[in-house]
């Protein structure tokens, strides 16, 4: 297991958001983290990353992760694409990318191959990019460096259908090299990419297993995610 989360609890602003979450992420493929709005998906990722105080235990690549500073974890190969993108609005696209470079040999080819727009806009300040362009930039930042695990929070949010398929394809290709923990609302994307799924409800893990078992069983899907599994093609 590349990541083992055990009994993770988080309290924010007086409310007990995560109440003992446990799950594992296997060292290959994509694991989806699902659940309705406000259930604590983002909170889980940020707790793993050490951005918010949490109790319990988190094990990243065999080393305890809780309590270690975020930047150390990242340097050990834990990449993070946050939910609200968090591109640096005051910096240009090129500067955003330059900042993210950690390795000797950043992989600009893959990045510009996936997102040619970023190359054209390298001198535009990131704050004026359209929503979708910002998302691409956020993804590009983690793709530059070699990674051991990616935490990706809703990468397709706000993207046009064509871009969603492009991003999905990119994630699929990346998944051949690095495992991912993916938060995603678009079940079509989940179905296509994720091998395993973890469903959160009421601060706990409500279900954990192969994605097929979840999405292939309409009753279970409705039960856990509140929707029919037949996701209409756009």
């Amino acid at each position, binding site marked *: 297991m590349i990541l083992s989360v055990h009994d993770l609890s988080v309290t924010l602003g007086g409310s007990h958001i995560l109440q003992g979450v446990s799950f594992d992420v296997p060292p290959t493929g994509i694991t989806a983290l699902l659940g309705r709005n406000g259930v604590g998906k983002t909170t889980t990722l940020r707790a793993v990353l050490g*951005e918010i105080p949490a109790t319990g235990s988190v094990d990243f690549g065999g080393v305890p992760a809780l309590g270690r500073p*975020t*930047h150390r974890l*990242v340097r050990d190969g834990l990449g993070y694409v946050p939910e609200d993108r*968090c591109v*640096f*609005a005051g910096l240009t696209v090129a500067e955003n990318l330059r*900042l993210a470079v950690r390795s000797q040999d950043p992989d600009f080819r893959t990045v510009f191959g996936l997102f040619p727009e970023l190359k054209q806009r390298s001198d535009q300040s990131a704050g004026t990019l359209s929503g979708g362009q910002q998302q691409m930039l956020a993804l590009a930042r983690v793709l530059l460096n070699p990674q051991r695990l990616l935490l990706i929070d809703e990468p397709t949010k706000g993207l046009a259908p064509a871009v969603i398929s492009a991003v999905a394809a990119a994630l699929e290709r990346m998944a051949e090299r690095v495992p991912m923990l993916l938060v995603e609302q678009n079940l079509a994307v989940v179905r296509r990419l994720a091998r395993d799924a973890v469903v959160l409800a009421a601060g706990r893990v409500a279900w954990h297993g192969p994605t097929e078992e979840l999405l292939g069983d309409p009753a279970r899907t409705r039960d856990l995610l509140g929707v029919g599994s037949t996701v209409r093609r756009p």
Partner: protein
Amino acid sequence: MSTVVLLTLTGLGLAALYFLIASGLSLVFGLAGVLNFAHGLFLSVGAYAGWFVATHWALGPAIPVGVAAGAATGALVELVVIRPLYRRPTEQVLATVGLSLAGVALLQSIWGADPRSYPRPAWTAHTTGVLGAQVPDDRFLLIGAAVLVLAALLAFLRWTRYGLIIRAGVENRAMVSALGIDVRAAFTLVFTLGGALAGAAGVLGGMYFGSVSPGQGAGLLIFAFIVVVIGGLGSVTGCAVAAVAVGLLQQFVNYYGTSGAGDVSVVALLAVVLLLRPGGVAGKVTA
């Protein structure tokens, strides 16, 4: 003619002094987003450290010691006061206000409120004739130092990644960490640099004024603020341009205008610049 030459050269000297003081302020403000009211304190610490060495030991090491003292103060302040407050930017600024109050009082309790005369190389008191104008030599020292500092700062920002890290860190510190960068160390570095610049300005300012007093740094701060803001927040080149504009304007208005018009004209310049281009000279026009 000789009057114009004299006013121009001494105006540039004044500009150099403003730039030396404002550059550190601008660096910290532009990069770390902290309007550092304690910058005047850093300045005074550097000045007193240089003074102490120069009067008790030798003149030579005064500048390096002043710079080191300023840098150490900057680092200490960042580590002890600024760092724990990074989630609360307003409080950071306020803490520096508190520091400036306490620090000046502390210096005063150690060295008294009266100005101490500042040792300096004898040649700085001489003048050089330029087109009939007797230009004090210490102005050339100031201008030289300012150019040096400007070049060094530009190189730092251009050739290292720190400028980028810190600008990004101001916007979203957590995200910079999430890119695997120890953003805290970068902030400490900026404060150390700002302190070092203040220390240099303190020693050179002490030599320029021929004296040092606890409130000297704080007293100079207001014009430094104006220079920083006119120059566009955090732009070192903008800061240099603004310093020259302010120095020359003040000098000429003081000579040709009525008393007090020099200060008022500078303040008016600030107001006009801010209203026309809220981001300062180097800033982009915002809608």
